[in-house]
């Protein structure tokens, strides 16, 4: 098994993945690094690569002119960075910035989308896994919105 494929299958998102499908995804993957403070992607830019974080933390931010960036989440090792690559118009909806030196696997979204169109078993397997990660993040966001540590009426 190639190095990138082995690393890919060690990531929480792809753990237990069938080898054939792992090889297909690995064909779109590369190792990437970002320096601390480096912008990984920017709102409205094409979402043509997403990331599986292996080391370091990333901040997700929304920019509003004249204000400091609103940081609404941080992601660490094991997390998937970026979901907008999955659905049209394939553009990022927020900024991502490295808070620390980052090691990650970058996955070429165009390459993977094309393979998913050609191989629906791959597409379905990928969608199930990405959906589970995104639903977990949706649940966390709901909890965050509830403001459970504030003074709530009984």
């Amino acid at each position, binding site marked *: 098994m190639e190095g990138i494929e082995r690393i890919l299958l060690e990531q*929480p998102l792809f753990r237990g993945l069938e080898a054939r499908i792992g090889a297909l995804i690995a064909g779109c993957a590369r190792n990437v690094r970002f320096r601390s403070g480096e912008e990984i992607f920017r709102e409205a830019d094409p979402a043509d690569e997403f990331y599986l974080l292996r080391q370091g*933390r990333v*901040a997700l931010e929304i920019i509003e002119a004249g204000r*400091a*960036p*609103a*940081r*609404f*989440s*941080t992601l*660490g*090792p*094991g*997390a998937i960075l970026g979901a907008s690559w999955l659905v049209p118009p394939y553009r990022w909806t927020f900024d991502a910035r490295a*808070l620390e030196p980052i090691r990650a696997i970058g996955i070429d979204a165009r390459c993977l989308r094309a393979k998913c169109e050609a191989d629906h078993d791959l597409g379905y397997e990928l969608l199930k896994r990405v959906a589970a990660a995104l639903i977990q*993040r949706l*649940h*966390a966001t709901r*909890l*965050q919105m*509830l*403001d*459970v*540590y*504030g*003074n709530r009426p009984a």
Partner: protein
Amino acid sequence: MSAAVGSDPLVPQPYRVTRALRETADTVTLDLEPHRGEVPQFAPGQFNMLYAFGVGEIAISLSGDPADRKRFIHTVRAVGAVSSAIAAMPAGSTVGLRGPFGVAWPLAVAEGADVLLIAGGLGLAPLRPAIHQLIVQRERFRRIIVLVGMRRPEEILYRTQLEQWREQAGIEIEVTVDRSDPAWRGHVGVVPSLIPGLGLDGAATSALICGPEIMMRFTANALRECGVAVERTYVSMERSMKCAVGSCGHCQFGPYFVCKDGPVMRLDRIARLLALREI
């Protein structure tokens, strides 16, 4: 001599506020010393009943070092009439105190394994005595991990102490906030979202959770997904305690009285009750 030895558990003893330390805009940590003698021995997770004379009495968890027999330490958030009266007490005031009461964190069950303490908001206060005790017995445990979730950076409790523990006590500490500010460099997000990144050995991890019930439910779910057994997961329950000795029934929670069967309870024993909409 212990201040409350031989005393009626329903009769408050006078304690003097010797220090009132403002932690956040609405939260104060009070040092309380008995008028004479030592404080009774307490175990991490237990609580006292604090009485603001002429206002009322509430249960407040002990949040100091169990080895300190000179004083009790309580962190109080001003929410209702009684807690606001107690939180407003300056040094030199007298408060009535009954206790300690309740079931403690079962630190012995985690010996030889990893122990994960997860606090949400003021829930860090009842866990702080457990951290003190774990540090004293550091060699008996493998990883000691403390996860703290707070609302905002300026509401982080015991900030200096968390830093000291991280640097000096061999404890892994991660703090996350729900709402960030431009100066905050730490995690942003809810505390359960930190759990998957810990690389837990689920089969050999005991978890102690204290915070709002919703936060504890989400946290327990995240722990289960990482293989931490409900039999090794403990939560600290909050109910309206009145008598504190299991007589009045104010704190009834299904078949339990939280004041005497809790506040620390094993999750598998109460999971069914936590899911009920009316209790």
